């Protein structure tokens, strides 16, 4: 177990593509960090640099006290779980799990003991002599986990490990992985494009876009105080409503409608962000939304409509009977986030 330190890490591919722009952050011992972003944002390159599967173009990477830039993946004391599990198809589960230990010249009895321990932890005891092709997706996932934990690594790396599973299993494995990481107390870096996974599993989320780190923070911070419009629109389903507004005389307006008071910022155009669930139906409310479509989600309803010509979605609980048409609403306290119109950065 160890702290991981990245300083000014960047990745430039031979064809000149800058996959990761210089990035620095620390991962404290035992923390579960999720790298999230749309495909092509550089999160996988980042993970693969930490793993040692890609060379680091610039910067220093420390795992524990060691600088590992020039170490082979095998010498970095890491374990990785791949998206398609990457189990060795010709080996039994037992051998798959033990292969890494066997390569490290660990005594047979010790290997057997550790494999037994890992398989007990993952409920794989009945499958130890099967081949991966005879296992279900979830079981293969567990074997991949077993292969990782059996080595007692300092760092777990997960590369979208759940995206090949069906939705139900995904939820279950999500909990299992998180619980396992808690129990073992091993530092973990987890890459995903699924913001729900990021929110539910992470101690801290790193949101990436186009090779840049947009925000680093706890799920709560990232959700409630997104640092940029990108984060605001990427995290959360449905995403935050972003509308063009202005600040005049200390009042934030969308069109003619005053949505908030703000005395900190100079007058001028801004981007106004409001979470769909922060808008509440209120017969006395000043805001009028033209609802055009109601999505029934069971526990909630998702309303799609417009506010002063801007498209907008509203998340209401199932108790609110809403029909398409005009709906009066009001905002919760502190519901409005403001972003610079040109920079997209949060104005706090």
């Amino acid at each position, binding site marked *: 177990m160890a702290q991981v330190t990245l300083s000014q890490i960047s990745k430039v591919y031979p064809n000149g593509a800058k996959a990761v722009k210089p990035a620095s952050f620390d991962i404290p011992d035992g923390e579960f960090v999720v790298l999230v972003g749309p495909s092509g944002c550089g999160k996988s390159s980042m993970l693969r640099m930490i*793993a*040692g*599967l890609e060379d680091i173009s610039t910067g220093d990477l420390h795992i524990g006290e060691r600088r590992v830039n020039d170490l*082979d*993946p*095998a010498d970095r004391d*890491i*374990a*990785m779980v*791949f*998206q*398609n*599990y*990457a*189990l*060795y*198809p*010709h*080996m039994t589960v037992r051998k798959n799990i033990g*292969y*890494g230990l066997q*390569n*490290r010249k660990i005594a047979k009895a010790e290997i057997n003991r550790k494999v037994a321990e890992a398989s007990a932890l993952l409920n794989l005891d009945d499958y130890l002599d099967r*081949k*991966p*092709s005879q296992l279900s997706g979830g079981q293969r996932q567990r074997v991949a986990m077993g*292969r990782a934990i059996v080595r007692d690594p300092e760092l777990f790396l997960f590369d979208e490990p759940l995206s090949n599973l069906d939705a139900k299993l995904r939820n279950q494995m999500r909990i299992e992985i998180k619980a396992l990481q808690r129990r073992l107390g091993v530092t973990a870096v987890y890459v995903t494009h699924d913001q729900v996974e990021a929110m539910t599993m992470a101690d801290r989320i790193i949101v990436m876009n186009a090779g840049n780190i947009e925000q680093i923070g706890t799920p709560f911070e990232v959700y409630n105080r997104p640092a940029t419009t990108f984060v605001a629109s990427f995290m959360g389903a449905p995403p935050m409503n972003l509308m063009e507004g202005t600040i005049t005389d200390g009042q934030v307006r969308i069109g003619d409608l005053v949505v908030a008071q703000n005395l900190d910022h100079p007058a001028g155009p801004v981007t106004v962000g409001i979470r769909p669930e922060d808008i509440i139906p209120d017969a006395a409310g000043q805001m009028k939304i033209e609802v055009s479509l109601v999505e029934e989600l069971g526990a909630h309803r998702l309303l799609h409509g417009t506010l002063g010509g801007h498209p907008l979605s509203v998340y209401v609980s199932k108790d609110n009977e809403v029909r398409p048409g005009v709906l009066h609403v009001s905002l919760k306290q502190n519901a409005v986030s403001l972003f610079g119109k040109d920079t997209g950065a949060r104005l706090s």
Partner: protein
Amino acid sequence: MTTNTSPRRRLKLSVVLDHSVLIIGAAFMIVPVLMLLQMTTVADLINMKTGPSLMIGDQLDDNFMKAMFKADGFAGDNTGLRMLINSLILGLGFAAGKIVLGMMAAYAIVYFRMRFATLAFWIIFTTLLLPLEVRILPSYEIVQKLGMLNTFHGLIVPLIASATATFFFRQFFRSIPEELVEAARIDGAGPVKFFIDILVPLSQTMIAAMFIIMFVYGWNQYLWPTMITTDEDMFTLVRGIKQIAQSQEGTTLPEYGRSNMLALIAILPPVLVVVFFQSWFVKGLTESDK
């Protein structure tokens, strides 16, 4: 099934036609072999007089003994058994050599970041256009100068470079997911370990397929053994049979029984290899667990 439909299916014209074509084709292939078999059962004199016939004689065991154990030539070492062993060594060495070399070449081309790896591959590939026959004289000269005439390595080594095997293994290796390589790297498997622990077992079916093709190819080599082996105890079956079938001198009869028996024996090992490895083939194709 509970419903009792008529067990007799009506013959369709197309079915009859299909089967006729297949039966004729099968007969066309099998009749020469049956003729061969018939000729091994009768004495050479009768063969000489009547040629192939429908008569089954009683000379099978006699011809077999002659084919396997009778030696002729100057040194008297080229019994059928000896030739059979030589052929086996050639076939196995040829197949094994081609597979090992092809796999290693493909491994280098696919998994190592070499400059000009693709160019190297295509250069190897173009050697398909240069079969042995084109370069047989220089090859012979080299083998002769190295003093490898009448040796097994002289017979096998010059033939084992194989563009075909390299090509097939290259295609196969490229279909193995990248993550497997990465997982092995993280698991601490170096290049040699990865090759032996992961690639070779994964390639089993590919190796079996290559083995079928290459064994038969090596077994059937004629020109090269004819040039390289002048000692009679180095003769292979394919090369030796001709020697026997042609030896009509003076009053001795050509030994039809013996040479035909040898021909039959020569057919057997490739057939067995195909039959045996075919099951592997099917297993590999259906149990795809890559």
